């Protein structure tokens, strides 16, 4: 039998574990590539180095990292307080749908107000979608992990149904796609020749705002207190039900905003494959890789973006299956949690006790 004894880690281990986890993932990945018959070093080069050296891929890093960071920042508050929103993917899709639908409703109508309106609609939709697990949790005690996760599949099917029905492009030869958004409903490109859009600086601002909220605001204090000692939080006057609602609502709204940005940015229209790309799940890894800290998450999102882009490159160059990227990200989370356990607990093989 294994016994886990708590021990104290310094601030250094907080930074060291994610780096160690990345290193272990690289090593395990190399072994994995050798087994499937790809040249390990060349493949690693494609995955980890090319996205940083190739100028276009470098710009794509920001495009991929922005939604991951935005979703993960929202999730991190709940994860700190023990509220487990696993359904950010669904809230992301709902945000894309609502924001996109507003954009389509005002098709060919020009105005600076359209993008903010779409963003608000996306946040509201993500918020409301997250309220389903939140209210069920508070009113009936239903597990928010299961409910939020199940709602992802509902959201995915809703997306398929809407792009094949009411939101379908009337001139689109019956393809299950919406119209392309017109200019007023599309996030402006900031750097010519790339896909870097104006949503990216917004994500940065939100990251800094979240940092202030977490470290200096009463809400952030309550979140940290709830995570550290739930009973002490109740004693301090934090209502557990309110904490569930606020944390799920906040993460839902930010995931919804990310969805709108994705639709109005890189995707440019609503399609099933363009929107439902698992950012909501990958963001969970980003949140933990970033130590649930807003600034760490910005870095973590870049790291995951590297594997996303590098993984795509490896498919093209080395013929690796698409699943290789998922395996890679799974390995990263696995090693991260394993090293975390290792730094937080001293693990011993205990002699059998018959008490």
């Amino acid at each position: 039998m294994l016994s886990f004894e708590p021990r104290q880690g310094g601030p250094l281990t907080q930074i060291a574990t994610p780096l160690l986890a990345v290193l272990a993932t690289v090593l395990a990945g190399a072994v994995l590539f050798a087994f499937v018959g790809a040249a390990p070093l060349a493949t690693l080069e494609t995955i980890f180095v090319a996205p940083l050296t190739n100028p276009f891929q470098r710009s794509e890093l920001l495009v991929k990292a922005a939604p991951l960071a935005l979703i993960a920042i929202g999730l991190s508050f709940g994860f700190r307080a023990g509220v487990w929103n696993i359904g950010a993917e669904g809230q992301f899709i709902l945000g894309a749908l609502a924001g996109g639908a507003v954009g389509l409703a005002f098709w060919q109508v020009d105005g600076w107000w359209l993008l903010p309106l779409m963003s608000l609609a996306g946040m509201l939709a993500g918020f409301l979608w997250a309220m389903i697990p939140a209210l069920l949790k508070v009113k009936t005690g239903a597990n928010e992990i299961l409910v939020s996760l199940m709602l992802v599949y509902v959201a995915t099917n809703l997306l398929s149904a809407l792009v094949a029905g009411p939101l379908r492009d009337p001139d689109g030869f019956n393809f299950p796609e919406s119209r392309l958004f017109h200019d007023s409903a599309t996030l402006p490109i900031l750097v010519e020749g790339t896909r870097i859009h104006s949503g990216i600086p917004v994500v940065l601002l939100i990251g800094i705002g979240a940092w202030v909220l977490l470290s200096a605001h009463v809400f952030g204090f309550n979140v940290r207190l709830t995570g550290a000692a739930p009973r002490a939080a109740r004693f301090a006057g934090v209502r557990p039900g309110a904490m569930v609602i606020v944390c799920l609502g906040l993460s839902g709204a930010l995931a919804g905003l990310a969805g709108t940005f994705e639709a109005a940015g890189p995707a440019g229209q609503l399609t099933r494959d363009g929107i439902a790309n698992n950012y909501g799940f990958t963001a969970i890894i980003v949140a933990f890789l970033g130590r649930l800290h807003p600034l760490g998450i910005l870095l973590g999102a870049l790291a995951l973006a590297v594997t996303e882009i590098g993984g795509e490159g490896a498919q093209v160059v080395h013929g690796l299956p698409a699943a290789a990227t998922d395996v890679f990200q799974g390995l990263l989370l696995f090693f991260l949690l394993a090293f975390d356990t290792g730094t937080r607990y001293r693990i011993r093989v205990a002699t059998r006790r018959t008490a």
Partner: protein
Amino acid sequence: MSELLEIRGLTKAYPGVLANSDISFVLGSGEIHALLGENGAGKSTLVKAIYGLVRPDKGEMYVRGHLHEPTNPAAARAAGIAMVFQHFSLFEALTVAENIALGIKGGVPGPDLSQRVRDTANAYGLQLDPERRIGDLSAGERQRVEIVRCLLQSPRILIMDEPTSVLTPQEAETLFQTLRQLAAEGVGILYISHKLEEIRALCDTATILRGGRKVAECQPAELSAHALAELMIGIELTRPAPRLYIPGPVVLSFSGLEAPSPDPFGCPLRDIDLALHGGEVLGIAGVAGEGQDELMAAIAGEIRTAPTAITLEGRPIGGLGPAERRLLGLMSAPEQRIGHAAAGEMTLAENAFLTGRTRQRLTWNGMVRRSTTENFARAIIKRFDVRTTGVETEARALSGGNLQKFVIGREILQRPKVLVVNQPTWGVDALAASKIRTSLRDLAASGTAVMVISQDLDELREIADMIAVIARGRISPPQRNGALSNEEIGLLMEGRDAAHAVV
């Protein structure tokens, strides 16, 4: 008196602390031997070594002349050693007989075992029905189950760890009779406690530990409790001077207070009527688990009740939350320090913010006022002599006594109208305990209404003006401290009416 157990030079070190240093003593047949010391003096480590839960670094143990090196409790039991722990390991949903069967090698519940349980219990004057469910038993009855489970194995050495902390005075007296009977039959008993009076009444010999070392061995009956306490802590203690009791107006009152328990095995509050006056210390006595936690939760605002069930200076507050109550001047300090009164992983400054945020105005437009909060924490540390390196220290790094001084100081510094504390000196060293008691008395002297919930009757005798008893979720009418005898309080603790039972 022949030697049953001999400990020679036992030493055990944990990282950073020497739990036991070169401890030697002898337990004879038929002897009741007290291990006396404060929390952290090394009593637990010592008996865990004897019971095979801890392996000593140095030293030898002999049981009836044979080297005793148990690697696990089963080996210790095979050598004839049994132990009754402070915290019971019983399944609440199973019956007494089923629980006992689980603890005995090859035990099968059935009529045979039930009869043996009944016989053993009767032989030692312990009332116990083998067919009752543990969940329905009081703490005293649960302890009897643990004792009978030990006795069925016919031990030669019995270790009792703080056995009376969950007992009423009457139950404790029954236990003492059982222990004396066992001693008369030749069993050696190691009795761990920090309650001095009971050690003087019960034990033949006492080994006194301080900071992991043996500092004295004595016949406790020949020393005063005061002298024992000074041996135990190594310094002279001052006792608070008696004080005139002049109650002020009613500050906090309950009328028909009812509250469910959040814990399925907890104890709901039933029809409590009580008035707390300014300037008085009201002690709430009672054994563990009789509604103290629920009372605390109802007062702090963690459980909401009917608005008029609790009034503060005439204002109904039963429907208000914890923060609103603090703003009105109702402060509290729950029993569990880490995880309830304070968050162990957060700094002292953050823990000062935890309850001080509204009344001390530690926020500004929703933001935490960092330097004001740190000043508040510094003031607590200075005023209440909290030994720590600074306000950035995590709460869990403090000793029990220092953290308790911080927690109670945090409430006192906010100038409460009412302060309610649950088990103020539980797990606290004697010096800190004495300081905490003095500061509670001083607070009452300044006009605050103070309620002290405690399972330690001696403590209430020392500091309370009035004493009431909580039992099965009800509270008896308060009486002047001294008006009720320990026996009468004991009857109230069992949920009986003292006036009727005494006749």
